[in-house]
């Protein structure tokens, strides 16, 4: 069967049967409904029950949500998650942006630098957690050693309520800022050189080029990075599980950690599902915020 290229005929040939698109879609849809969509709906139904892991479910309506509204540990988890967000998101977005700016310049070895800075992202969370458990060790850890050189007292990173969340934030930034850098780099490379050249010829300094051209043109990319960062940091679980388990005390208890604790360590599946749904609702709300931003930003 020869395929004649560039036969720019708009005449739609005889299409296959009407069932064809469904056939193409079917394998995916089956998996999707069974293992993604179904569970999402199922999760909501589960949140309306009281269900112990070895028992049978009992319908309780919105009782779980009511209990959640007066659960101090839930609010702690919410507060901690927001705190984590505040600690990591600006660093991740700004860090990614600055690194991309730096490595967009014609520097020697920038290709290798980009790959090396991105490399931590390829490491699994358990490994990152173990490595940083070691680096943050109060007595023999690398970080405290260098802090001591700067005459800053040893900080009990993972066993002090004040320092535990910043420790996890630091780990997270090291681990994932490369991802944001890659996205920003792609965005930077889409900015036409001519614009920046024109500005410079017109006499603009490097700062002005940055503020007047680069940043505005990067807004859609920045928007994507901010949304992805917020969504991902809100769902933090892995590093917390490996490094502190939610401790010391409840200092690093995050929403997903609390979900896991309720569902799989206290065996209240219904209650755990309610926590999951509330987290989902908050994320939805956060992502709808973009409607309130200037229209040129909405990608």
């Amino acid at each position, binding site marked *: 069967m020869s395929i004649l290229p560039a036969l720019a005929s708009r005449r739609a040939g005889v299409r296959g049967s009407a069932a064809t*698109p469904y056939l193409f879609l079917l394998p995916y849809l089956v998996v999707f409904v069974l293992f993604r969509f179904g569970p999402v709906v199922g999760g909501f139904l589960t949140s309306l029950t009281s269900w112990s892991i070895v028992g049978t479910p009992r319908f309780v309506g919105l009782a779980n949500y009511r209990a959640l509204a007066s659960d101090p540990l839930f609010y702690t988890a919410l507060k901690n998650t927001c705190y984590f967000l505040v600690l990591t998101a600006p660093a991740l977005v700004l860090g990614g942006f600055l690194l991309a700016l730096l490595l967009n310049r014609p520097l*020697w070895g920038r290709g290798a630098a980009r790959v090396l800075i*991105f490399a931590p992202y390829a490491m699994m969370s358990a490994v990152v957690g173990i490595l940083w458990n070691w680096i943050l060790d109060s007595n023999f850890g690398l970080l405290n050693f260098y802090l001591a050189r700067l005459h800053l007292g040893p900080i009990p990173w993972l066993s002090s309520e004040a320092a535990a969340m910043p420790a996890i934030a630091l780990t997270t930034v090291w681990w994932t800022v490369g991802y944001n850098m890659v996205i920003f780099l792609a965005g930077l490379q889409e900015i036409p050189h001519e614009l920046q050249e024109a500005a410079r010829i017109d006499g603009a300094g490097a700062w002005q080029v940055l503020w007047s051209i680069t940043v505005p043109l990067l807004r859609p990319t920045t928007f994507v990075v901010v949304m992805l960062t917020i969504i991902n940091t809100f769902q933090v679980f892995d590093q917390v599980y490996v490094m502190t388990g939610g401790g010391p005390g409840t200092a690093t208890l995050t929403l997903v950690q609390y979900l896991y604790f309720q569902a799989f360590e206290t065996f209240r599946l219904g209650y755990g599902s309610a926590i999951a749904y509330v987290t989902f609702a908050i994320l939805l709300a956060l992502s709808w915020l973009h409607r309130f931003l200037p229209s040129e930003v909405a990608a």
Partner: protein
Amino acid sequence: MTARRSAGGARPVPASARARSGCAAGKWGAAAAAHAVEIVCVLMFVAPIVWMISTSLKPEGQILSYPPLWIPRTWTLENFQSVLARFAFVRWTVNSIAVAVAATALVVALDAMAGYALARFAFPGRSLIYQTIIAMLLVPIQVTVIPLFLVFAQMHAIDTYQALILPTTANVTGVFLMRQFFLGIPAELEEAARIDGAGDFRIFSQVVLPLSRPVMAAVAALTFVSSWNNFLWPLIAVSSDRARTLPVGIAQYMGGHAGTSGSAPAFGPALASAVMATAPALVAFFLLQRYFTQGITLTGIKG
């Protein structure tokens, strides 16, 4: 993105227009500074990895020593041997590989077909189906873990490969990327093939797919890494070494932290297992980072 005239165009030349009138030393200074910053940044990201490798090669006595030594005084493989002797590390790795390979193959196959259907065909329900699929992007995966657990428990399929592969196969980003890509392919080629009498599946496999290597590679890379690093669901779904994957094995056996029972494992074996788990991933990453970056870029820019 609309191009705008730079605001600087109408202004007088600022006094600090170093870029044009700066002396050579100023330019070199800026370049040197930039290179210095580059080196510092790279060091900050690479140093922990080097430290991980260095620690894994030290005997326990040297690990807990102060000041820390970057280069071991005596090298030893005892940490690696200890891990391999005491834990089913190889089995975990094999499980991770099998699950990731199967999930990746399935995702690429299923998502390509689904993306094609959504991009090329007009059929009743298309919009609804697509919107539903995309809506799932906003749903955090944690919402699904409890019901997924109940489903697989009911089928007595906990602690199996299926339990690990199938939820990953239901991913959304792949469909999204595929559809975007197919929309970007000019329809003429397919029309031409249709005129020649080719059936839908033939057009798909012989015309469209060969053109789709970039997106397929990107989706494959993203899915493989995502499956490889997947943690929460495997943590719940796995209860024995039969299906235990690498991240879960390492976290459960090597992770110890304030708040768990007072038997935090020694650092040597923990870091040796970290090195063994990371080395193949890093090697693969360095070889394939192009596709991975591509995938992220596609998600980022278009998304």
